[in-house]
């Protein structure tokens, strides 16, 4: 009887060792994987965040400048332009585009782009900013 229980213990022991090595390996691996994942994710995210921010900030700087240039004029045309420019500034100011988790990121980006195109046409600006508008943005893996 004693020898049977001893060999059972031994068997349990071996199975536990089997688990133990797997679990300890897993723990080490998890740490390394977390480190790698954060770094890799960060490097990818940075490029995406930079691209969209560069585009939207461009629109912002563009609109703000036109606002200051236009606001001294009182004619109807300037007023109409100013109104469109201010509406574009409003859209961008309210838009938390630095947050990749923001639920309306894509939607708001399209809205700002459409507004920008409208502003350009009102200002008779024919400059080609298509570089920006063609940029696609994926927010996850």
């Amino acid at each position, binding site marked *: 009887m004693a020898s049977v229980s001893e060999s059972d213990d*031994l*068997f349990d*022991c*071996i*199975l*536990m*060792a*089997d*688990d*133990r*090595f*797997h*679990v*300890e*390996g*897993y*723990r*080490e*691996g*998890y*740490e*390394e*994987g*977390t480190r*790698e*994942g*954060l*770094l*890799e*994710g*960060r*490097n*990818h*995210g*940075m490029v*995406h*965040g*930079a*691209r*969209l*921010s*560069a*585009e*939207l*900030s*461009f629109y*912002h*700087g563009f*609109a*703000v*400048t*036109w606002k*200051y*240039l236009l606001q*001294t004029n009182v004619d109807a045309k300037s007023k109409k332009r100013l109104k469109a420019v201010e509406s574009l500034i409003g859209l961008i100011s309210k838009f938390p585009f630095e*947050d*990749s988790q923001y639920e309306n990121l894509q939607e708001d980006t399209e809205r700002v782009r459409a507004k920008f195109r409208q502003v350009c046409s009102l200002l008779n*600006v024919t*400059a080609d900013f298509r570089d920006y508008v063609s940029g696609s943005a994926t927010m996850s*893996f």
Partner: protein
Amino acid sequence: MSWVRAVASSGEDVFDEDMDDIGLQNKEWKHNMEKRAKDGYRDGVDAGKEASLQIGFNMGYREGAVKMKSIGQLKGIVSALQCWYQSHDPGTPALSSIAELLRRVEEHEEAVIAAMRKAQERPPPSVTDVTETMEDLGMEQENECGKSGGRGRDGDGGGVCCGKNGDAGGGPTQRPSQNFNDLGESMGQLLRRCVEIVTQHGLPEELKRHLLELKAP
């Protein structure tokens, strides 16, 4: 699993075996335990990566977005000034200095993005050598049963270990070594140059104030 049989039988009658056989069994045991740890390590890397990629992405996204705000705005401001002069005063000498500044701003923006791309394409630092890890785990057959005892069972609580390691996601210590310092300095120069142009050509005071509020990242 042959190694289980090998060790189990060695417990029954160790002394009948040749030393060579025991040596072989030890080797086999060690080999199998190493394999278990390696498999665990690989599973752990996959799980850790999967759990942290999105967190890393979100952090990097914010960093990249914040970094480009000033540059993007400056480019928009200079572009707007160019458009304004082209339609209101096409003969002004201001246009050439504005075009020159716009070129420099675009170059700077491209350099910053290129530095980020480079970091993105660079493969992550090589995985710690698995054999090193094996040493840390203290692969020694004779200590195995005596020491491991309950620890094997504790280790089964995989959820606990995952949760603990998952916390590390909050604060990564690794930073890609990107050379943004010189780029930041050049951003300051570009902003100053733009303020000069605005002052020199009597452009709105509010625009100057807006420029002064933009900071080099």
